[in-house]
């Protein structure tokens, strides 16, 4: 298994004023605790173009040091045509190393996806547009935000209500909070957020916006936009007080580790640089200090000032 390592591993990079010193390229910040749940997050990936392959290669490199067992997909799994050869060029080939290593992919649907992708076994959707699965003490809810009908909402409420898991992690294509070209999906937020709050969803991942954005906790919920594993809209993150960290100058993906009552995350660029990392406690109220403790790298922006974007 030949994995190209193109990145130069440098020493710690000193950040500019107000920024933290962060590990250099390919330095893993995740704790790698025994028996933890380890997964990756990609979104808006299915272009079939070179940058998608490069992100796939980078994920394979990190998989060696952080052996995640599955990947959650934020949708737009295949852009454009969806012929059999497109499934190869836009999914099977870019992630071949991971697929060969038996890493599972759990897809959600984006607005560029044919809902019949749900029958494609490697996407592990079980023939359903929305579904749930459990890994140790974490339950995942993969939603279809493109077509959020009342039936799906009722299903979600029932599943959340009956979920006994410690961690409740939802993911879907459209971000409830984002400050890019599309902005926050306020209609969707009006329906989903009350359910998330009522039933204690801890973390929400989305895509649609082609960048990485870590949102400050909203009503106690941590939101991430991870929609740049194939597409990129450079410089698209508008200033907003809700941004904890933003990165829109290159493609990216995330690694996440759930260990007991802590969830650690790391956002990594196509070139292998850590652009954001931190730890989220399961019960923020009993943890001293900020709900989310993070660090950022040069190239990522923190605490952008307000400019009126939603």
């Amino acid at each position, binding site marked *: 298994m030949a994995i190209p390592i193109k990145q130069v591993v440098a020493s710690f990079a000193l950040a500019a004023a107000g920024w933290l010193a962060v590990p250099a390229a390919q330095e893993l910040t995740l704790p790698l605790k025994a028996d933890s749940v380890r997964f990756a997050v990609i979104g808006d990936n299915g272009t079939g173009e070179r940058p998608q392959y490069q992100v796939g290669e980078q994920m394979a490199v990190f998989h060696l040091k952080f052996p995640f067992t599955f990947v959650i997909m934020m949708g737009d799994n295949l852009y454009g045509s969806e012929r059999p050869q497109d499934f190869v060029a836009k999914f099977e080939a870019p992630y071949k190393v991971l697929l060969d290593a038996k890493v599972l992919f759990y897809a959600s649907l984006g607005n560029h996806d044919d809902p019949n992708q749900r029958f494609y076994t490697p996407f592990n959707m079980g023939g359903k547009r929305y579904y749930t699965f459990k890994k140790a003490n974490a339950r995942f809810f993969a939603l279809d935000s493109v077509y959020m009908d009342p039936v799906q909402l009722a299903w979600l409420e029932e599943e959340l209500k009956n979920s006994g898991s410690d961690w409740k992690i939802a993911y879907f294509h459209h971000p409830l909070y984002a400050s890019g070209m599309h902005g926050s999906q*306020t209609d969707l937020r009006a329906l989903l957020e009350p359910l998330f709050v009522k039933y204690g969803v801890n973390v929400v991942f989305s895509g649609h916006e082609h960048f990485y954005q870590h949102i400050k906790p909203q009503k106690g919920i941590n939101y991430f936009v991870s929609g740049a594993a194939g597409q990129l809209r450079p410089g698209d993150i508008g200033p907003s007080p809700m941004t904890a960290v933003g990165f829109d100058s290159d493609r990216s993906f995330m690694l996440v580790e759930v260990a007991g009552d802590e969830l650690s995350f790391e956002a990594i660029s196509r070139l292998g640089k850590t652009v954001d990392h931190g730890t989220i406690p399961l019960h923020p109220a009993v943890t001293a200090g900020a709900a989310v403790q993070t660090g950022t790298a040069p190239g990522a922006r923190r605490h952008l000032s307000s400019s009126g974007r939603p």
Partner: protein
Amino acid sequence: MKAGFGAVAVSLALTATGLAQSRTVAQAQAMAEFNQRVGAYMAQAKQLESSLPPLKKSDDAGEISAREVAFGFAIRTARSAARPGDIFTPGAAKVFRRIIKNDFHQRSAHRKKLVLDDIPHFRPKVNQTYPGEAPLATFPVTLLAALPVIPEGLEYRLLSDYLILRDVKANIIVDFVVDVF
């Protein structure tokens, strides 16, 4: 004189109430007709589908795609005489237009943008395969909640100025309403 005005006012109110009632009845009839036609379509589609190998999970994307194409072909053949308005009858189309326009006009600029952001621009035809290159525009959740519930297997989608009814498994456009925004 005051009594005269009062009588006129009462008469106008009764007329307005009567008109509103007759409009409500007409709308209810139109939507009942729509539901009946949707039901008839689903019965026909189910029968056609039973003649095909079942759509099942597969790691072969070609198999899934071939099944979708075969089902679309079967429906297209069986409904070769289908015309616009067969399911969205003129009465139903009027109700759908009103609901969508009402939703759209109540939206802020940002919420309008969210609706229009991903909408593909092409003119639909009955029995047309939904083009693979066109995104399936996100359907506004509040609007979806306001529209009649349709059976699983069918879905509403928005195009530039159209509401379409799409068969999900066959990926074809079953019918459409024009001038919805």
